[in-house]
């Protein structure tokens, strides 16, 4: 017996296996970042002084990065939409753009980190920098993970399109759900760390 509903949708749930799987996974991710945000609130409210984000961090770089990530979410949707219309060439273009924009985000982050490290603002400097490095570092790992998966679908993983385009489209959709989640986390991180 083959495993049912890997591609087809089960009628009474209206979903395929992969889509349930990715949403459950995202639920656990919400709890992961939720716990870190909760810790941030507790440590900040319990501390006698706490710097306002824009006095220590460069909010202009972060604004640029916000725009980069939101754009990459748009190109991710376009990549999936191209597959839905069976236009493989445009899919590849949009998927490449998504991965590259992720790369731009990481490069900007690299300059930001090296600037702070150069000033001697290590994680051990204060709890502000401790939570800054922990939250943005964990988020960065998620960006990297999403980029690896997307690059796989742009490259070797795309072979599936020839044999089973529906399944391949589903995979790209699920990877997109994860990518949007990573984007959403940043949209919470940006004001919390850089502005408040």
């Amino acid at each position, binding site marked *: *017996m083959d*495993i049912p509903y890997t591609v087809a949708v089960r009628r009474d749930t209206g979903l395929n*296996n992969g889509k349930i799987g990715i949403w*459950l996974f995202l639920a656990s991710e919400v709890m992961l970042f939720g716990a870190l945000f909760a810790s941030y609130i507790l*440590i900040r409210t319990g501390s006698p002084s706490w710097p306002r984000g824009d006095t220590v961090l460069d909010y202009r770089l972060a604004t640029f990065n916000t725009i980069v990530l939101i754009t990459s979410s748009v190109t991710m949707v376009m990549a999936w939409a191209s597959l839905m219309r069976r236009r493989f060439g445009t899919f590849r273009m949009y998927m490449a753009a998504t991965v590259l924009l992720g790369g731009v985000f990481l490069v900007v982050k690299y300059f930001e980190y090296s600037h702070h490290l150069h000033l001697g603002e290590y994680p*051990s400097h204060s*709890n502000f920098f401790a939570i800054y490095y922990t939250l943005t570092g964990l988020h960065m790992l998620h960006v990297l993970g999403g980029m690896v998966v997307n690059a796989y679908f742009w490259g070797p993983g795309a072979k599936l399109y020839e044999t089973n385009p529906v399944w391949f489209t589903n*995979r790209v959709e699920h990877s997109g759900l*994860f990518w949007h989640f990573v984007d959403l986390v940043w949209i919470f991180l940006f004001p919390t760390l850089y502005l408040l």
Partner: protein
Amino acid sequence: MSEQAVAAPKHEHHEHHEELGFWRKYVFSTDHKVIGIQYAVTGLLFLLFGFSLMMLMRWQLAYPGVALPLIGNLFGEARMPGGTMLPEFYNELGAMHGTIMVFLGVVPLAVGGFGNFVLPLQIGAPDMAFPKINMASYWCLFLGGCTMLGSFFVPGGAAQSGWTSYAPLSVIAGSGQTWWLVGMIFLITSSLLGAVNFLTTTIQLRAKGLTFMRFPFFVWAQFVTSFLLLLAFPPLEAAGVMQLMDRVAGTSFFLPSGLVVSGQVLANAGGGNAVLWQHLFWFLAHPEVYVLILPAFGIVAEIIANNTRKPLWGYRSMVYALIFLGFMSFIVWAHHMFMTGMGTTMAAFFQTTTMIISIPSVVILTALVVSLWGGSIRFNTPMLFAVSFLPMFGIGGLTGLPLGLNISDIPLHDTYYVIAHFHYVVAPGTIFALFAGIYYWYPKATGRRMNETLGKIHWIGSLVCMNVVFMPMFIVGLAGVSRRLFDAGSAYDFAQGTMHWNAVSSWGAWTMGLFQLPFIFNFFYSIWNGQKADDNVWQATTIEWSAPSPPPHGNFATAPQAYRGPYEYSVPGSDKDFTPQFEA
């Protein structure tokens, strides 16, 4: 990352499975039954290892400062000079006993082992929804286990800050603690992957006609357990990352300002919050308690229905109680923390939710007890273990009530009373249910039954010894002896009257070790020499018994279908006393 959602490979066609070589078939297998057995064997080995650590500690507690005869010299001068245990080694044993029993013993066996093997068969599925992720989940557990075992050999030894790893002690502890954190991250990843897989499998791969209210109770138990794992583990992962940052990058998440260690003020930035670790830890670890007990409920319910030859009494109320229990388990965690000086409002909230959560547990236990009423009970080994679960878990549950109330918790906190309470829940409770499950599903996994006489010796020995071990601890605890004392309190006057009870507990533990030998022998001997079992050896009604024993790759020759509820035993007018779910 999103790999797990997308890596749903097309299963190898049934006719291809003979081609798999040894490694793909038995080691790096994607078959849920092989993975289930891998999990179960790993879990059993770690249970034995964790129990051995405890048997060493019991010597020190029974005879503090006396050199351990025969094997005392094997542990080296750094741990047991002249065979006498050092406090550091005692702490190492204690921390690793807890960690190993919970995260590497009971959870892998109850959830990974039974969940993987039984759940897809019970819902009539050919495999798990994501077989490769299932394999990855087992190997994450394996790496986590290796990390934990390896930590015994790093300088300074394994973690010594208790299985709870309370900060700031754990942050300033030796390098074994870093290994503990890395190991925990592997174990958490394993559980998260498993939980996603179990939930998707249960929702999507149910056989035709198997609606949620036709699920065997075991499936419901695993379903709620997976939700707890999915949502409660990530906060501990976050806490683990923060503690790792504290230890490796020198941050101060859990270190307050001006902390003095060995007469010196720590040179850290400070401003952290030690109680934050406790909140994040117990936010996982209280649901974790239910992760330990719910699969046990599920196993016991299956075996009781089967051996009373009656439907479960109050199946629906049991299911609703289970769901309510799962929900409530997320809002009781701070009852572990009454001693942290929380305000009365907070304490009142958490003691109220704690009293409320005892209600669904009592509903389930009562339904199981009432299910026995008027049945023609078959007392085989699985049933003996399952029936003993009921009073043992009952003792564990009832003695928990004084700990859930703020005012009575304060004198009892961190005494042997707590140890006795939660071991009654987990040891003669959950572990008895796990033994019951092994004897019950062994014929499905191997095609042969385990020996009944050896099984009954194992049962009576374990039952008596469990009580000899843990009942005295209530007395020691009520006398006020702290569980953290490496000499069992022999340095204190008030503890002198309890010292002989420690020896009783210890001799109980060592005797119990001997009574596990018939089980170990039986487990291996019966693989080749057990009495042959047919497909439905217990005349049971649930779908797993329609598959061949042992089930082939892909489980069922044709897709099974569910025609009725799970426990149609002794239906009036039927020619036999069971009417299987899978028969039209």
